[in-house]
C-alpha cells in the first residue's frame, strides 16, 4: 500500500473535474477575502474616515467566514481527491457539498453586505439577537440560515468520506491502533490516519454548531433563557476545531504529497500513529484556551485547556516537521513551486504553532488576550501554513492534469513576493500584540494609537501579498480551467 507518486492516479475524470472546480472556487473566495482583509487594515489605518464603523464589522465577519470556509473546503477537496488512491468517496456528495457551500456563502454575504450583520465569525451569544439598529434583524436570520446550510452539507461530505474509509478499513485500523500495539502490517497510509482523526473531530464541531443554532432559536423564540457560558463553550468548540482541522487536513495532504517530491515513502510509524491519536484525544479540549478570561469557568477547566493545548500541538507538529525534514534530507528533493509551497507551509505551521502555544499559556493570555497577537498566530498557520499546503496540492495536480512540465513563469519571484508580503503583514500583527493593540477595533482609542501606523504598514505588505497572489492565482486558475476542460472532454 505504498504511496503512488502521481497525484492523479486512480481518480476518475469526474473527480478530477470536481477538484479543479473546488480549486477555482477556493482561489476566488481567497482573493475576495484577502481584499476584505486589506479593507480592514486600511480602515484601522484611518484611510476611510467617512465610512461608518459598522462596515468594518460586517467586512470582518465576512472575511473570517469566507477565509475559514474556503480553505476548509479546499483542504477537504484535496483530501477527497488523494483518498481516492485508497478508497472511493462519492463524487455526488462532493458536488452536493459544493452546491450547499455556494448557497451558504451567498446567504452569509447577503446578511453581511446588505444586512450589515457584523458580530464577527463567532456570533457570540446573545449579540446576534440584539441588533440595536446596527444591522437589520432579518440579517441575523439569513446569517444563521447560511450557517445551517453549510453545517448540513459539510457534515454530509465529512460522513461520506468516513463511509468511504470504513469500506476498506476498520476503525481501529484507520486509526493505526494495531501499529500502536507493535504490529507492522497491514500498512495504513498517514493520509488515511490523519483524515480519519480529522473527520471524526470535525463531526463533533459541526454537531456543536447545530446545537448552537438550535439554542439560538430556543432563546430567540422565548422558549428558554440559555446559559451564555454554555453558548460560548459550544461556539468555540465549533470554531476552534474547524480551523484546527483545516490545518490538519492540510498536513494530511503534506504527508501524501511530499513523498512525490522526495521519491521516498512516508509510512505510518508508531510515532506518527501516537501523535495523531493524541490529537484525537486532546483536540476536543484545546478550545478551552479561548475561555481563559471567563472567570465563571472553574479553575480545573482552565487547567485542562492549557494542558490540552500544549500536548495537542507538540506531538503532531514534532513528528510531522522532523518527518518532513528526514524525508527531504539527501533525497534529491525535486524543488518546484508546489514543493516549495509545501515546505513554506510547514514553516508557517511551526511559527504560528509556537505563537499559539505562547498565547495558550494562562499567564501570557492574561496579557495577550484579544490583542493583535491572536490574529497574528492564526493568520500565520493559516495564511502561511495550510493555505500554502493546499495551494501546493492544486498547483501540483493542475500541472499533472494538463501535462505541464514547468512551473508558472517567475515562480521564484512570485514566492518571494508572497512570503515578503505575508510575513511583513504578520509581523505588524505580532508587533501590535506585543504593544497591547486590541483586535477587532475599527478605530483605535488614544491609548493604542500605535495601532494606526502598524495597520498602515500592514496594509502596504498586504498589497505586496495581493500582487503576488493575483499573478500566481490568475496563472494557476488558467491552468485549472484547462485541466477542467480536459477532464470534461475525457468524461
Amino acid at each position, binding site marked *: 500500500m505504498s504511496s503512488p507518486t502521481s497525484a492523479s492516479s486512480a481518480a476518475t475524470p469526474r473527480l478530477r473535474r470536481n477538484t479543479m472546480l473546488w480549486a477555482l472556487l477556493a482561489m476566488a473566495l481567497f482573493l475576495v477575502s484577502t481584499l476584505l482583509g486589506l479593507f480592514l487594515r486600511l480602515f484601522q489605518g484611518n484611510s476611510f474616515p467617512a465610512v461608518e464603523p459598522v462596515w468594518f464589522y460586517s467586512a470582518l465577519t465576512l472575511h473570517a467566514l469566507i477565509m475559514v470556509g474556503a480553505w476548509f473546503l479546499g483542504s477537504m477537496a484535496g483530501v477527497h481527491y488523494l483518498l481516492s488512491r485508497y478508497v472511493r468517496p462519492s463524487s455526488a456528495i462532493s458536488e452536493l457539498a459544493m452546491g450547499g457551500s455556494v448557497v451558504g456563502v451567498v446567504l452569509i454575504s447577503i446578511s453581511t453586505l446588505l444586512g450589515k450583520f457584523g458580530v464577527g465569525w463567532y456570533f457570540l451569544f446573545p449579540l446576534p439577537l440584539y441588533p440595536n439598529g446596527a444591522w437589520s434583524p432579518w440579517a441575523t436570520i439569513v446569517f444563521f440560515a447560511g450557517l445551517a446550510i453549510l453545517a448540513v452539507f459539510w457534515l454530509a461530505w465529512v460522513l461520506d468520506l468516513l463511509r468511504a474509509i470504513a469500506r476498506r478499513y*476498520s476503525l481501529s485500523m484507520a486509526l493505526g491502533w494495531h501499529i500502536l500495539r507493535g504490529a507492522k502490517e497491514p500498512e495504513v497510509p498517514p493520509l488515511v490516519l490523519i483524515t480519519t482523526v480529522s473527520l471524526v473531530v470535525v463531526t463533533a464541531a459541526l454537531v456543536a454548531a447545530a446545537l448552537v443554532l438550535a439554542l439560538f432559536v430556543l432563546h430567540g423564540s422565548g422558549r428558554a433563557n440559555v446559559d451564555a457560558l454554555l453558548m460560548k463553550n459550544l461556539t468555540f468548540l465549533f470554531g476552534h476545531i474547524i480551523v484546527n482541522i483545516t490545518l490538519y487536513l492540510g498536513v494530511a495532504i503534506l504527508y501524501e504529497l511530499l513523498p512525490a517530491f522526495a521519491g521516498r515513502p512516508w509510512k505510518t510509524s508508531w510515532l506518527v500513529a501516537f501523535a495523531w491519536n493524541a490529537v484525537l484525544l486532546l483536540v476536543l479540549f484545546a478550545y478551552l484556551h479561548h475561555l481563559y478570561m471567563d472567570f465563571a469557568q472553574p479553575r480545573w477547566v482552565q487547567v485542562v485547556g492549557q494542558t490540552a493545548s500544549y500536548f495537542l500541538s507538540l506531538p503532531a507538529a514534532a513528528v510531522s516537521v522532523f518527518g518532513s525534514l528526514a524525508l527531504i534530507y539527501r533525497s534529491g528533493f525535486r524543488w518546484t513551486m508546489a514543493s516549495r509551497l509545501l515546505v513554506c507551509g510547514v514553516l508557517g505551521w511551526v511559527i504560528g504553532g509556537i505563537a499559539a502555544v505562547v498565547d495558550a499559556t494562562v499567564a501570557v493570555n492574561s496579557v495577550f488576550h484579544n490583542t493583535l497577537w491572536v490574529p497574528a498566530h492564526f493568520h500565520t498557520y493559516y495564511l502561511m501554513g495550510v493555505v500554502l499546503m493546499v495551494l501546493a496540492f492544486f498547483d501540483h495536480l493542475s500541472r499533472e492534469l494538463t501535462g505541464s512540465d514547468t512551473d508558472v513563469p517567475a515562480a521564484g519571484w512570485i514566492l518571494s513576493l508572497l512570503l515578503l508580503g505575508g510575513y511583513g503583514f504578520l509581523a505588524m500583527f505580532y508587533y501590535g500584540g506585543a504593544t497591547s493593540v486590541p483586535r477587532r477595533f475599527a478605530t483605535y482609542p488614544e491609548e493604542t494609537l500605535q495601532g494606526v501606523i502598524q495597520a498602515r504598514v500592514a496594509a502596504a505588505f498586504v498589497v505586496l501579498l495581493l500582487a503576488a497572489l493575483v499573478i500566481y492565482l490568475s496563472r494557476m486558475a488558467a491552468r485549472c480551467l484547462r485541466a477542467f476542460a480536459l477532464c470534461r472532454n475525457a468524461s
Partner: protein
Amino acid sequence: MTFPRIAACLAAGAAALWGQSPAGSLNQPPNEDLYLYHSVPDILVRPAGKPAMPLSELWRERPLLITMVFTRCAGVCYPFLRSLRTATESAGKPPSGYGILVLSFDSRDTASDMKAAAAGIGARADEGWIFATAAEESVRRLAEATGFWFRWDGERRQFDHPAVLLAVKHGRLVRLFTGGRIPAESLGAILRDLAGGFVPSYPLADKTSFRCFQYNAATGSYSLDWGAVLLVLPGAAAFLAALLTFRPWRRKCARAPFQAA
C-alpha cells in the same frame, strides 16, 4: 424532528427577533445592569427612635444593605425580610462589616409601625438593623436612582412593588438583588462583593436553562449542571457516528481489496 417542526421553530425565532422591544415590562423587577455603580442619593432618613440622619452617615463606616418595604404589606415584604434575617444567620450577622436599612416607602408608616415590623421579624434588639421612614420625595429619589418602583392598587388596598436588596458601598450601588426571598448563598456573594472579595459568578434574575456549572457562593465551589452534558454531546455524537459508520462495513466488507477506478 420533522421539517415542519424545524420550520416552526425557525419561524418562532424570527418572530421573536422582529418583536423584540428594548424596554422591559413595567411589572418587571429592576434590571441590575442599568443601575450598577450609579450614585445613590444621600437622602435624609428617620430611624425609629433615633434622630434623622443622612444616608451617607450609615454607609460612611461600612457598606449598607437597603431594602424597601411597607408595614401593611400582605405580600412579599415580610417573607422577604424573614428570609433576609435567616440569611444573615448563616452569612454573617450585622454589624460585622455591614448594616441593614429597612426603609418604608409608604408615607403612612410611622416610627412605631417600623418598630413593630422590626419586632415581627425578631430584629428589634439587633443594632445592625435599622428600621426607618423618610419623606415621600426622598423615597421617590431613592427609588428612581435604583430602579425600584411601587404603585398603589386601590382595589387590593396594597402597593404593587418588587422585593429588592440594594448593596451600597461608598455611596454607589454595587449589587441589586431582586426576588421573593434571598438565599444565604446570594447574600454571602453580595457580602463578599462588598468586602472587596472576588465573586466569579452569580445567578441572573431570570431562570437560565442548561447551565454548565452551578456556583455555590457560600462555599466558593462549583458543581456540574445539565449544560455540561450538552458540552459533552458533540464529542459523544461524533464518536458514536464514527462507530456506526465503521461498524456495518466492517462486518460485511471488511478489508475488501481496493479496485482503482
